[in-house]
């Protein structure tokens, strides 16, 4: 059995290679685009911005009343 003139196993290697190279893209689209998970540096920012005014003041930041 052949696909595009090559054995099925060889065709499968081509498909597997494209999938192997696309694993990062799949992860990016599913996790960061669809599920909205923040990136490492954004996660740190999110934690910081969620701190209470006391914590910000302790770090020397300004607190708006």
């Amino acid at each position, binding site marked *: 059995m052949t696909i595009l003139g090559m054995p099925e196993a060889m065709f499968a290697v081509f498909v597997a290679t494209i999938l*192997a190279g696309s694993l990062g*893209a799949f992860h990016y689209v599913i996790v960061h685009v669809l599920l909205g998970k923040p*990136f490492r540096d954004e996660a740190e920012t999110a934690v910081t911005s969620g701190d209470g005014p006391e914590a910000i003041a302790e770090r020397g930041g300004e607190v708006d009343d």
Partner: protein
Amino acid sequence: MIDQIPGDANPYYLAAFVLYLLLVLGIGLWGYTKTDDVMDFWVFGQEMGPTLATWSLVANFVSSVSVIGFIGAVYVEGYSFMTHTIFGLMLGVSGLYFVVGRVRELNVLTLPDMIAKTTGYEIARPISGSVLLANGWLYLIMQLVGASLLVTTITGVPYEYMVWVIGVVFIIYTVLGGLVSVAWTDLLQAVVMVCAVVIALVYMISDMGSLTAINTEFAALDSAMVHPTHEGTYTALMIAATIVAFFGTIFTEQNMLVRIAATKDVRTAKIHLAGAGVILSVFYSVLILLGGATTVALLDSGLGVDDPDAAFPVLITDYVSTGIGVVIILAVMSAILSTTDTRLHSTGITTARDIYSYFKPDASERRLMRVSRVATVFFGVTATAAAVNPPGTIIELYQLRAVLLTSAFLLPVYVAIYWTDLDGRAVVTAIIGGAVLGLGTDLAGGGIGAIPSTFVGVGVAILILLAGHYLLSSSDKGGGVVTNN
């Protein structure tokens, strides 16, 4: 020794080549005006956005090894090259995506930076820098051989002259603007070469009927050419070793770390690896199919070559029309110079950042910039001289440095960035042990008995890493002090 391939001088090809060199020199000059300090020169001021980073990575990835060497490899061993090499490379790009958040978070500029930071031993910087310099220098030679062989074939200018013309041009534009020049020339080059390779395959398909017809004829030449293991020529162990070797190079090449450092944030770092993975995996599938079409076209036309590296150049000069030939030549030159400039840039940063600054920690930025530029010129000129009479074929050199990089760095470095208590001395020793055993057994015949050299190197590295960690940490709680530079 490079075989001289007779070819008639083609004024269209020569003109395209000259215009191309002038264009990249112009971009190099423009990059010089945008380079204010050493961080601009080394890592684009860490301001590279997603589009530029993605296409720059694609351009850097696709080289003369890819275009000339891979098509030559398909000419010899058929599509099995996809199984053991391309698959490993693509898996490596995606693998790096999954650790890039941690790598970018460390905010290191180079691989030796990362090693020094995770081990706490600054001496790791010049040691690993030296291994990377050896790799970068070998890669430069491969690029120059590929570029010069191609241009010699298509223009008729003798190889020994052409290698110096190309060498001098890429040295000048890289030394002028550093990564600023490199990245912007890459953007242009990546788009040109991806489009051109697709156009070339479409041309071959229309010329030969269909993709099915090409593959059927390829199989008729030798059924092993369309078999994933070349009908048993490559054993499962050999394939696994090669996949590991090429998977590992993605994690351990200096230029990959430099590019990650150049991205402006983790999001950009992830996007550039995710996007480049998709583009590259499709591109290489097209390229390998083009290799099959090239083989069928040459052999059916009585244009068979003795040197596989000459297969693609001969297709351009003796098979396709001049119009298609010009398009392909621009693509190949783009592929070659975009990778060459990146590797050359990496030798400069390795010398200044990883080796010189270790011995001269108080060196000024101005001094480091000068050292980078001097090293760039030095390694460029010596690689050009070596390329006049290279020590092996492109593919042989390519595999040699893959074994070296993966054996030395893959496991010690990436285990260390997650296993933070790992003893730094064990990491440094594992790097040295992996490099010596991996490279040594490869040069001595490809391995020990049935065990391929990649597995010898990686195996020794992990054994030293674990044994060293437990022995050293039980006798002494010392490890390095984690640095924060």
